[in-house]
């Protein structure tokens, strides 16, 4: 078991190195725009740009730049400095992390709490009216773009501009430590909007997975043994059916922690996603690079955790 874990972690580290190299290619080699020029701003003189070029080490051969970049990244956690504001990318990201965490974890709780029970109930009452209705609604939420749902939610319910003024509008987020109640109310709409699509997907996946599981022989055996139906469903059915949910859950959380760009933009939440969006409008490559790397890190870690969990549950996996 430990050998499998070690193997996975080593592969994860290698992956991270490869992805870092890839981002270097994407943001240094691909674009025609020069970092020195971008950093210097609109009306900089050629002398300033030349000085910046030396400062940023851009006059060195590409290989040397790449080596310095990787060394800085892995040894010092150095993510560079913003072209736009000069602030350290790392500090910017850490400042924005709490907002993204608040949004992600809250949405996670909601979508699991709504999606899974609906999926389970739908699977148990196949083809009933409730099943068709809930799956229909689920499909609607999957098909709608989340930023559009967010705008509609704001249009209907926002305190400043909505038709029915219930929830605080966009841009009203405050940190948890500043004002817990305001933090909570300002996140309700974003949570619901973000969770809607995921709840729909999870309901559908849970339903399909449980339907397949419930047709297995051992469920029939459990019933024949005289176990109460509830126990059969929960203890035997759901337990086995939950594995695909686990996989996608880890992946979804990994991706979301990199910043739910769309929802954060619509609701003006100062998270990592929003940081990314602002960086794009300013062609602020170091920030974009930093957030892509951070998101990749979360995804890789999530993948490793899922693989380890699978290896724990299914011994055959360890020897592959």
């Amino acid at each position, binding site marked *: 078991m430990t050998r499998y874990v070690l193997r996975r972690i080593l592969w994860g580290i290698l992956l991270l190195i490869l992805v870092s190299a890839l981002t270097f290619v994407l943001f240094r080699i691909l674009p025609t725009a020069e970092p020195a020029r971008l950093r210097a701003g609109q009306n900089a003189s050629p002398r300033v740009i030349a000085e910046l070029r030396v400062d940023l080490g851009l006059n060195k051969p590409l290989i040397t730049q790449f080596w310095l970049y990787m060394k800085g990244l892995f040894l010092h956690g150095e993510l560079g400095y913003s072209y736009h504001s000069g602030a350290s990318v790392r500090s910017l990201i850490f400042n924005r992390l709490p907002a993204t965490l608040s949004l992600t974890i809250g949405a996670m709780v909601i979508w699991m709490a709504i999606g899974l029970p609906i999926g389970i109930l739908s699977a148990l009452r196949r083809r009933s009216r409730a099943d068709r209705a809930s799956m229909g609604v689920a*499909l609607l939420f999957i098909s709608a773009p989340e930023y559009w749902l967010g705008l509609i939610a704001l249009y209907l319910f926002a305190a400043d501009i909505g038709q029915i003024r219930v929830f605080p509008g966009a841009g009203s987020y405050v940190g948890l430590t500043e004002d817990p109640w305001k933090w909570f109310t300002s996140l309700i709409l974003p949570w619901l909007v973000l969770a809607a699509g*995921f709840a729909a997907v999870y309901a559908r996946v849970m339903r399909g997975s449980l339907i397949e599981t419930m047709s297995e022989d051992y469920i029939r055996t459990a019933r024949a043994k005289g176990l109460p139906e509830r126990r059969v469903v929960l203890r035997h059915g759901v337990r086995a059916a939950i594995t695909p949910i686990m996989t996608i859950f880890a992946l979804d959380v990994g991706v979301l922690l990199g910043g739910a760009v769309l929802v954060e933009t619509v609701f003006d939440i100062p998270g990592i996603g929003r940081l990314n969006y602002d960086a794009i409008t300013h062609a602020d490559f170091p920030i974009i690079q930093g957030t*892509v790397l951070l998101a990749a890190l979360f995804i890789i870690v999530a993948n490793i955790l899922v693989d380890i969990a699978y290896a724990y549950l299914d011994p055959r996996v360890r020897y592959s």
Partner: protein
Amino acid sequence: MTLGAAELPYAAGGGSLGPMDFPAASAAQNGIAARSPLALFWRRFRQDRVALVSLAFIALLIVVAIAAPLVVKLLDLPGPDVQNSNLTNQFGSPLGPSLAHPFGVDQLGQDVASRVIYGTRVSLIVGLLGTAIATLLGTIVGLLAGFYGGWIDTVLSRFIDVVLAIPVLLLGLGLGAACEVRGCLDGHVHSGLGVIIFLIALVNWTYIARIVRGRVLSLREQEFVEAARSQGASGARIMLREILPNLAAPIVVYSSLLIPQNILLEAALSFLGVGVRPPTASWGQMIAAATPIFNTAWWYMVFPGVALLLTVLAFNLVGDGLQDALNPRTAR
């Protein structure tokens, strides 16, 4: 959109139409011709009314996309980039739905209905073409990796892992932003439709590749492959003639699930400003432009969104129908 991994049906379970899947023997003896798998599939698909309606809707969308100028002319609407600054009310905000402009008008005076119609082009091109390229790439890679195995498989699988570790939307944003300032690759590539299609293909081929590889791994061990090999068939011939036809069903199912996600992805990228640039009409970009004024000019935000919703919904329903028709054992 991060709903990618979730919606792919049971890769391990779920049957497909295998080579021995129709009761030919006894039927032929009675003088009854067996139905081909295609006919069986179509018969099952036809039973799903909702999927049929959605398919018709998609056909309509394709017609509208191709004949967009004609449709706009028939409905007596101005072109999508015809700006008209007279179409504002006394406060300077654009006019709402009226007879001349059924969906209203945006800040630049462009007719929303006309732009929604032209927007079909972008969404469909990106969704269909991007998915097609991704499917082609993924099938080739999956076929090679699964069939030959060994170090080819290892290298390709690791490569897939790397691509999957990269966050999709962020990568799209990054590429879009990187190529926006002065172009990429010495200015030869500029952000726009081409980059988006490339990005979508880049991001989606791994899903298809993994699934194809899994299927090929199990198909490879079956007797008909061994029989072909014993007759002296080359690797390429076995792959094309024996294995590929059996992959048709899962490939169709999975790629049909990818199309709606790619349409949403293009809209999301356009919403964030790195997709299709104005004046080309794209639904996502229209929603983005509507954001500053949507509390008063609701029509500019609502109609493109509804168009997106209906299009993606239609593709999802057809995808579900295809899945039910091609995998009858896992029917809901």
